[in-house]
């Protein structure tokens, strides 16, 4: 029996989330006293694969082909390795791809599934995990009662642990089947920090007053190496693109630092940001509910406060 972790390279490189997943796999495998297998689909350089050893990867399977993503095709590849390696715990990222594959994979493996789990299992026998429900309003403990388990791990909930190993790398070709879906075109956002990878997020709400006022917000984001985000009405009004919408019906984020600028703090918005380590709120209304979710607050008008913030952070970064 073994633990299988599936990680996704982006443009041939691994991001922090992948290191967290490998660390997680290492700790689960060692608790269960089982072998850890890391599965990577995509062309990745040797050194990049070797670097996973730092986090405890001992056995790496690399399907070194660039296969267009398709739910069924990837489910097929991963489930084949899971069966071949007799994996009884399969771990994926709670990313867009992880979410797409995990439910299919669970059915194919006859496994129980828990998505967006927080941190390590609370117990292995019985197998108990922690997660959130009701969009962050409650924490639940769940038991997965099947022999084989599939998990998606929430980002930044387990941390990265160093654990040096020299991995054995097996490079193989997939027997990928033809997919029923056909990709017509792909559009990639370049030169921007992605919301789900961002350590810092600068987010604006209706209190920003209009799309023309986003310039200082974008400047602040750039100075901090942050991603930009917004509340739902802001994207509904077309002030900002939909992929920036954070909250219950948008993206759930977990950065170290979240700036909520002119956001009232409606419960549906908080649902998307409650896992942030530190929240800074700026709002002209001292009674705004965002202040009860924030760690640091400024009461003031953004028209004057935001340019001051941008300047002050610029100075700080330059010093």
């Amino acid at each position, binding site marked *: 029996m073994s633990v299988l972790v599936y990680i996704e390279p*982006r443009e041939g490189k691994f991001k922090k989330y992948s290191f967290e997943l490998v660390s997680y796999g290492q700790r689960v495998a060692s608790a269960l006293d089982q072998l850890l297998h890391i599965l990577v689909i995509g062309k990745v350089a040797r050194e990049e694969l070797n670097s996973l050893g730092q986090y405890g990867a001992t056995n790496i399977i690399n399907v070194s082909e660039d296969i267009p993503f*398709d*739910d*069924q095709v990837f489910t097929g590849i991963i489930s084949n390795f899971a069966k071949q390696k007799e994996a009884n715990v399969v771990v994926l990222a709670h990313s*867009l791809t992880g*979410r797409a*594959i*995990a*439910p*299919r994979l*669970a*059915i*194919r493996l006859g*496994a*129980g*599934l*828990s*998505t967006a789990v927080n941190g390590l299992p609370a117990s292995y026998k019985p197998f*108990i995990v922690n*997660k959130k*429900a*009701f969009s*962050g*309003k*409650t*924490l*639940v403990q*769940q038991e997965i*009662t*099947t022999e084989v388990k599939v998990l*998606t791990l929430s980002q930044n909930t387990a941390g990265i642990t160093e654990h040096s190993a020299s991995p054995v790398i097996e490079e193989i070709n997939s027997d990928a089947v033809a*997919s029923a*879906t*056909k990709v*017509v*075109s*792909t*559009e*990639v*956002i370049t030169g921007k920090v992605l919301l789900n990878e961002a350590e810092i997020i600068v987010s604006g709400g209706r209190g920003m007053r209009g799309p023309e006022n986003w310039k200082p917000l974008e400047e602040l984001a750039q100075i*901090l190496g942050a991603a930009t985000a917004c509340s739902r009405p802001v994207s509904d009004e077309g002030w900002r693109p*939909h992929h920036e919408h954070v909250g*219950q019906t*948008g993206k759930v984020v977990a950065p170290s*630092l979240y700036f909520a600028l002119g956001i009232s703090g409606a419960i*549906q918005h908080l649902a998307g940001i*409650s896992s942030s380590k530190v929240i800074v709120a700026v709002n002209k209304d001292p009674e705004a509910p965002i*202040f*009860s*979710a924030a*760690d*640091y*607050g*400024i*009461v*003031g008008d953004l028209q*004057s406060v935001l340019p001051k*913030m941008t300047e*002050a952070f610029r100075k*700080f970064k330059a010093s």
Partner: protein
Amino acid sequence: MNIFVCISNVPDTTTRIKYKPGNKEVDYTGVQWIINPWDELALTRAIELKEANQAAIQKITVITVGKADAEPTLRKALAIGADDAIRVDVAPEDAYTTAVQLAEVLKSEKDALILSGVESSDFNSWSVGGMLAELLDAPSVSAVSSLNIEAGNVVVTREIEGGKQTITTTIPSVLIVQKGIAIIPRIPSMRGIMTARTKPLKVVQGIASQPMVKVLDYQAPAQKSSCRMIDPENIEELIDLLHREARVI
């Protein structure tokens, strides 16, 4: 082609969650029930498509797995514009048992586009759509943010890490939709509410299936400590706190 929209009946998103003594069950007394927000958007898009492609789309059916208390939510979906409704008379236990019931009803539907939401706003399991597709051995596309029927082809845009992809898929398929598919959900019109009363709502019996995951315990998340207020004339203090105290910059 028929469109099926899977509807999850969930507490209103502003509901304060309370538990029954022992913290093993949620206390649903006094809760306002709604159509899961993503399912509402899926239904909205289905209706728009039917209006635009009268010939291509015969019928929109909403389907839910739930006991009789889920019927007002199904009636609301009919009032918004679905043609008929199916309720599988089983209390949902986990994502797996729910998907099994849906698959049992939908497996005979070959000329169907099946829509589900990315997640239910109650248990946030992100599971039922993908499980259903696998049980039906049908293609699935998740994180779908736009859907069109062009010359009989199903054309969707899906969000991917750091971008988006336009894809065509075959029938039957399961599309797992998110925001963007529609922006503003349709609300029932007066006439819709009247006609919904007489639209067909079929109740079918479920099949036996065993859950794979069970909830052991609920807990309220830890409260944040109070917010530290900073003078807008003293941004340097904020920077200093973020740097030295919080250590996030």
